[in-house]
Structure formats: C-alpha cells, structure tokens
C-alpha cells in the first residue's frame, strides 16, 4: 500500500515561509493568492497502514507544532 503523509504547520503559529511565498506571488504578477502555508510531503510504501498514525506521532511529524494528514493511495509505486 502506498501512503502519502502531508505535514502542515499548526494554525496560529507564525509560518514565515508561507508568508514569504504569499508576498512573492503578487510581486511576480499572480494576484488573488492568500492564506499560503508551506509544509512537507512524505511518501512511502507500507505493509501495515495501521502503523501510519504511530509513525507520524513518533517521527514523521512533531505534533507539538505540526498537524498531519494521511492519504492511502491505491497501489504501491
């Protein structure tokens, strides 16, 4: 099973990378982009999808300051 983990900065914490991207877009001519946040993507083949939450809690994300979302894809890469 192929899994995709999206790791995002928790709402309410300053996200300077998101802010920088949000400032850069209109300066390059792209209007109307707002609420930009920058996170991380981890993709992996897993034998047991039940373990994914624990993997995220323990290593893939830092739950103090990050939220994570697990997506199960149909087939391994």
């Amino acid at each position, binding site marked *: 099973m192929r899994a995709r983990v999206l790791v995002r900065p928790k709402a309410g914490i300053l996200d300077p990378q998101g802010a920088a991207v949000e*400032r*850069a877009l209109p*300066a*390059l001519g792209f209007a109307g982009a707002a609420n930009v946040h920058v996170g991380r993507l981890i993709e992996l083949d897993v034998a047991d999808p039940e373990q994914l939450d624990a993997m995220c809690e323990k290593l893939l994300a830092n739950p103090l300051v990050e939220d994570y979302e697990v997506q199960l894809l149909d087939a391994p890469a």
Partner: protein
Amino acid sequence: MPEGTALRPGAGVPTLQDALALGLTASEYELVCEKQGRPPNQVELAVYSLMWSEHCAYKHSKLLLRTLPTEGEHVALGPGENAGAVTLPGGLVCAFKVESHNHPSAVEPFQGAATGVGGILRDIFALGARPIAVLDSLRFGEPSAAAGDRARYLLDGAVGGIGHYGNSIGVPTVGGEVYFEAPYEHNCLVNAMALGLARREQLIRSAASGPGNLVVLFGASTGRDGIGGASVLASAELAGEEEAAPDMRPTVQVGDPFEEKKLLECSLELLERGLLVALQDLGAAGLTSSSSEMASKGEVGIDIDVAAVPLREPGLEPFEIMISESQERMLCVVEPSSFEQVAAVCARWELPCSAIGRVTDSRRLRVLRGEEVLADMPVEGLVDECPLYELEPRRPQEGIYPPPAPTISPEAGPREALLALLASPNLASRRPLFEQYDPIVQSRTVRRPGEADAAVLALPDGSALAVSIDCNGRRVAADPYRGTVEAVLECAANLACAGAEPLGTTNNLNFANPEKEHIAWQLTEAVRALGDACRALRAPIVGGNVSLYNEGPGGPIYPTPVIGMVGTLPDATRAGRLGFRHEGDAIALIGPFAPSLAGSELDKLHGRPLPPQLPACELDAVLDALEAVRGAVREGLVCSAHDIAEGGLAVALAECCLAGAIGATVTVPAGDELAAALFGEGPGGFLVSAPAELIGRLEQGTGARMIGTVGGDALRLERADPTGDRRQELLSVGLEELRDANDRLWELFP
C-alpha cells in the same frame, strides 16, 4: 557540453558529426582516431570529449600558465595536485585553492554555489588536510529590489547555497567579495576558495601505484547528475522504454553537505590509519577524469568495472557511469590486504564503499562491464596529449565594453558623492551576506568578516593565518596588465593590514572566449601581470583554476583574474583591525598613494566609459609601504589599519568610522583635483590610527603623514588652502546617516 542531435538507433560506431556535437574539433577527432588506432566507440568518444574539453584540459591556457612562478621557500606542494600547500611553523602546512562553478550557478544558483563549495572542500581533504575556512568571490549584474530581478535572484541563491553547504559541513566562511557590473548580467561568477591544515607528513598524493592494487569508490551512489549535453550519446532504446519520457538526465548537480561531512571524516580517518595508497576526489567529468589522472600521475594503468559502481537508480549506461558528476564521492587506491579495514571504516561512517577496479601496468584506462571490455584508451593520450593551443592576442583599438549607466548627476558635490558611493552595490556593507555564514565553527577565527581587511585564523602555536580574496574586474578591463597587478597587490595590502606576510597565491582566471583576439590579449596580459606581481611579492602560485567562454548575447564579462592569498603573522593577539577605536587617536596616511579617478567607482557612478589604461604604480614604493604597515601592526603601534581601495580615501575613512562606531575629522591633502583626492583609487594607500603619542614614531618609521583625529559622531572632511591657513569644510555626515546609506544591500534580502 554543447547540445547536439541524438544518435540514430543502431548507429554503431560514432561519426565525426557526433564528435563535433560533443565539442571536439575535426582535427581533434582525427587525433583521437590516431591514438586509438581506430575510430573511438561510444564510451571512448564520451571520455575523450570530456578529457579534451577546455574545462578538463586547459587547452587554451596551459601554455600561458606554464609561465607563472610556482616555486619558493614556503611551497610544500605546487600546482598539479588537488590543491597547493605552503609550509607553516611547527611542521604544519596550509593547503588552499580557489575554483569556479560559474556555468552551473547561472542555471541554478543555490545548488551551483553549494556544489562549488563542496567541490573545493573535497580538493582540500583529498590531500589529507582538514578544511578550516572558506571564502567566496561573486560577480553579478546590477541588482534592483524589483521582484524577479535576475541579479538579485542569483545573489540570493548563491549566498544561500554557500551558507547552506559551508555551515552544514562545519567549515567557517570567513571572507569574500562581491561585485555588481553589467557585463556579468548573463554570465555570473561564483568562485569558492578553501583552506585546510595538515601535518606535513600527512599530505597524500593522488598518484595511483602498485599494479594489482584495488581502486575503491566510496561516498554517495552514482546517478545522472551533470551529464547534460552528453545525453546525445544515449541509446535510443532507453528513451523508448518510458511512457511519458520526461527528461531523466539532469544537468544540475545537487549537493548534500551532510554526506560530505561524513566523507570528510571518513577520508581523514582512513588516512590517519595509513590505509590508503592514493586518494582523489571526483569532480568535473567524474570517474573518467579521476581515474585517468591518478593513472597518469602514477604512470600506471587502471581498469574500471562499471558493473561494480553503486548506482542511485537502475539503467545507467556505461558512458553515463563514467562521466556522472554525482557529488560527494572519492576514489582511492588500496592494497588488497587493507580492503576489509577500509570497508569497516566506511561502514562506521555509513558510506557505501566498493572495489570498482584495479591498478595495472598497462598504462591504459579500460572500462569493463564484468569481463566485457567496453573501452580501452592510452592514459597519456587522454591526460597529457590533448592538443594545446597558442593564443593570438591583439590589443583592441577601442574599448569593447559599453559605459555603465550613470546614477548620480555630474554636478553632485562631495557629500552627495560620498553617500552615493557608500550606498552603491559595490561598496555597501556586506553584512546582509556574511551574516548568513557561520564564521566561527572550529574555534579558530580571530577576525570575523567586517572586523579587519583580511580574515585571521589562529594556529596552535599562537601565530595566525590571514587570507584574502580580491579582484576588480572593471579595472582589469581598463588595463589588463596594471589591473591584475593591482589585484595581487590588493590581496597583499589586505594581509598587511592584518599584520600578515604573504606565503603563496592561488588564482581563478575568469575570462570570455580566448579564441577571440581581444580576449586572448586580456588573458595574456593578465597572466603576465600575475607572474610579475607574485614574483615581486615572493608569493608563488601554488594552484588555481581557469574558467573560459564566459560570454553571451550581452557580450564578454570583464576579465576577472580572482586572486586568493594566504599569509602568516607571528602573534595572533596582534592581528590588525579596520575600525577606529578611541577618541583622540591620530589618523595617518602611509604609502605612495597617488589617487586617480581613472577606472574608479566614482567614474562608474558618473557613467564614464573605461579609461584606455590605468596609471602606473611605483611598485617598489608600494612594497615598502606594505612592509611598513605590516610592521606597525605587528609591533602594536597602531590601533587600526585599513587599505584604501574602491571609493578612495573618503570611503575608506567612512568605513573606518562605521566599523569603529566613532567619527573622525580629517584634513584632505591640498592639491588640484578635489574629486581625485577624495575618491580617486590606486594601490599603495593605507589609513592607520594610533594613540597621538605614538605618531612621532610612526612618522619616522613608516613615512606616515598625520591627516586627522578620531572622535565625535560624524565624519568631517576639510581642506586646507595652499597657505595652510584657512580650512574649508568639504563635508560633514553623521554616523547614522553614513550607516543608513551603507546598509542599502539589506533591501535585496527581505
């Protein structure tokens, strides 16, 4: 490597057309056929095309470089090895070299600059020296704060990349320089210099020896990095296998400083344990150049089995494996009985390690796949018998560079001119750049960026190393001979202000297309000047690099022979500083300073074209001044020492005030040309400050002339009239206003 057309499927032996597409000339191709005794096959053609490229073979510069002085009492290792080295007290040597990574940085500045740093660091530890410092020399077009501005994008990327790599690997970046000039707009320059320390007996050479010995590859796995234009050689079948056929052959090398940190520690440990016969890093042209150079130096042959090379992804063709520029890899020669121990050390550092070949006595480089021989070439033919070309220099009758765009009015007075200069990209404070670098890791840094004219690093016995990197390309463009002499003297001047005497020099020659006669003239004159100046300073060249063909639709770059110089001072506690220190200290001028506006920053702001030549300097008098300043700093006679360079006297005074956060009142020597006196440039001018009671000694010993006093919170310049009676105030600018102007580069790093 130039782009070309893909080989037709089932083409068999490559043709002349393929050779031309890979950058060889028709006569070079014929020479290859002669050396092979037959037309070369695909793998062989790929190997020759790289080994005989300008980048690897120095076809258009080698003959010139042979005229440079490379010997001297302090030389421990001259040109020809991975880096050069000079001897230090106490049985130590300092290895150092500068290299360029210009073309990759124009494509991807972050990775281009990062891998440039990675490459030069590998050259240092390939010798067995621990890298202790990095400096960088950068050139971009004129920047603006506008979004999407190319110069700003390149600057941001390059500085980020240098910081990322140097900081992560734990080597401090202690100095550097950056210039912004229109001719670099389409051809930026990113030169990286590194220094390392070793005990003399620890230095290892790269010559392979001992037929039967193993050739071992350790470090990162091999992928398709840097293959680029050589993809013309790819077999058509491979392209047919992928459905969407995305371009799988990246031209940009991606660096991993963490991998290199492990590689560095592993290499030094292997050397410490005496496990290696020879060591070489993999850089341009990868396995091809490393193995053939190791074989050539050792007068042996090498067999490489591509099937034994650990790959990052499956399906690489043999020629790709041989020319891959994947980063963070080293090649070594190991006696078979030592292999297990070598593998154990690599395993501890979590680095893959494979025996991929053998040293032979055949004097040939053979590429095998298991038992199958895929390529077979004479080592001498590859490494030493590439044709070398004489240049056909011709001095241009008129300037070949367009004048810069003016940025101040012709009527601007001294106050306005000073503030404009301090705010100009070439003179504004570099703090926004160097704050992105770690200058102190390894606990040796005595003078950090901005504290003195040269970086200073402590040595174990209480003495210190000083290092500087310099070149003003615009002045070299105006006068290649005198401009290059000035660049070398600038390095020596910066060292002198820190209290150091030069030991040796490295250089990176960044020029446009040498097959054009005016560029050939620039290169020839610059190398002639480099030799003369290094001989006069007794600071021989111990190594360097050449980067040619730096030109594009906008025209050629300014000729930019970047000079790096290393020196020593006996007492680290006496290292010089550039900022004024105490209220009441006297300010004095030392040296045969003969300022001229020709080729100056002020002339640039006024949009004047380059002058047809630069004034000559009194070389002997300049050398005397260097010695005088160095001595005064070493004896603790002065509180500060700063060399007068771009922007002239007024800018140098402002820099001393800003660095010391204290003002000054100075009487400018009376003379005809006010602008030249304030802002004129040229070698041989030094500003020192000293307690008032020591000035007498200074005047006697060094010919210093007192010109002012430190104090207050503004820089005040006056001019005495010829009778000396009345003073005319020229300008008065408060420290805050000076700093505000000088902080202009922060705009480029929001």
